[in-house]
């Protein structure tokens, strides 16, 4: 089960992910990010505090936007990942490619 809530905080769009992301529902994440970008979002923050599990299907979604967002000046930051979800990013070295922060405050501080 995955639920995605979209919140607006000043100039930031926050995606609050709750539950588990796998091959059955990663399209939900893809559509949420796509829709924010299509609607002109310049800063997307992903709150991972309630994300319990992510498989490569979900990681692949984040990876697929890296280049486009870099070209179009859209910022994508992930914060508050639980240790075991963060570990999955680390196994693949994605923590070096995607901006990941311990919490929202740190994510907002760094540009």
């Amino acid at each position, binding site marked *: 089960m995955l639920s995605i809530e979209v919140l607006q905080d000043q100039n930031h769009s926050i995606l609050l992910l709750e539950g588990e992301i796998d091959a059955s529902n990663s399209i939900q994440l*893809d559509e949420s990010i796509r829709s924010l970008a299509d609607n002109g979002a310049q800063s997307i923050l992903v709150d991972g505090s309630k994300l319990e599990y992510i498989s490569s299907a979900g990681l692949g979604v984040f*990876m697929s936007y890296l280049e486009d967002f870099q070209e179009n000046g859209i910022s994508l930051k992930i914060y508050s990942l639980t240790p075991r979800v963060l570990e999955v990013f680390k196994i693949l070295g994605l923590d070096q490619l995607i901006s990941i922060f311990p919490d929202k405050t740190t994510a907002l501080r760094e540009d």
Partner: protein
Amino acid sequence: MQHKIQIACRTTALADLRAFLQDTLEKLDIAAKDRHQVTLAVEEVCANLIIHSHQCNEQNHINLEVQDFPDKLVFEIKDKGQAFNLLDYEVPDLKKVISEKRKGGLGIILVKKIMDEIEFESKQGTNICRLIKRFRS
């Protein structure tokens, strides 16, 4: 004690697979971090089979058996689809995954990083993939 599950080839069955693995590995006293990682690796292989070998045909099935030994766990995954040998699959470069905007390919990297050994055999229409995780006893 035997630990087996059969799932239909639909992606929503992956949640059942995870629940089975969590339950089984907890009984086998595997540490939480290892439980999570081997569950992920087994799921990645099954997701590949469901999507690529079986095109999500729910009439088809995958059988998983967890075998526990004092120093290792063996996950035996059987199916009757088009053989997909992980060992033949060239692991894509991360940069290539990004530039081609591929949403796949990462799963196999995870499996190879998490598991210690991968075996594959295919005979008489049945494919067997064995994922082996070693633990220091």
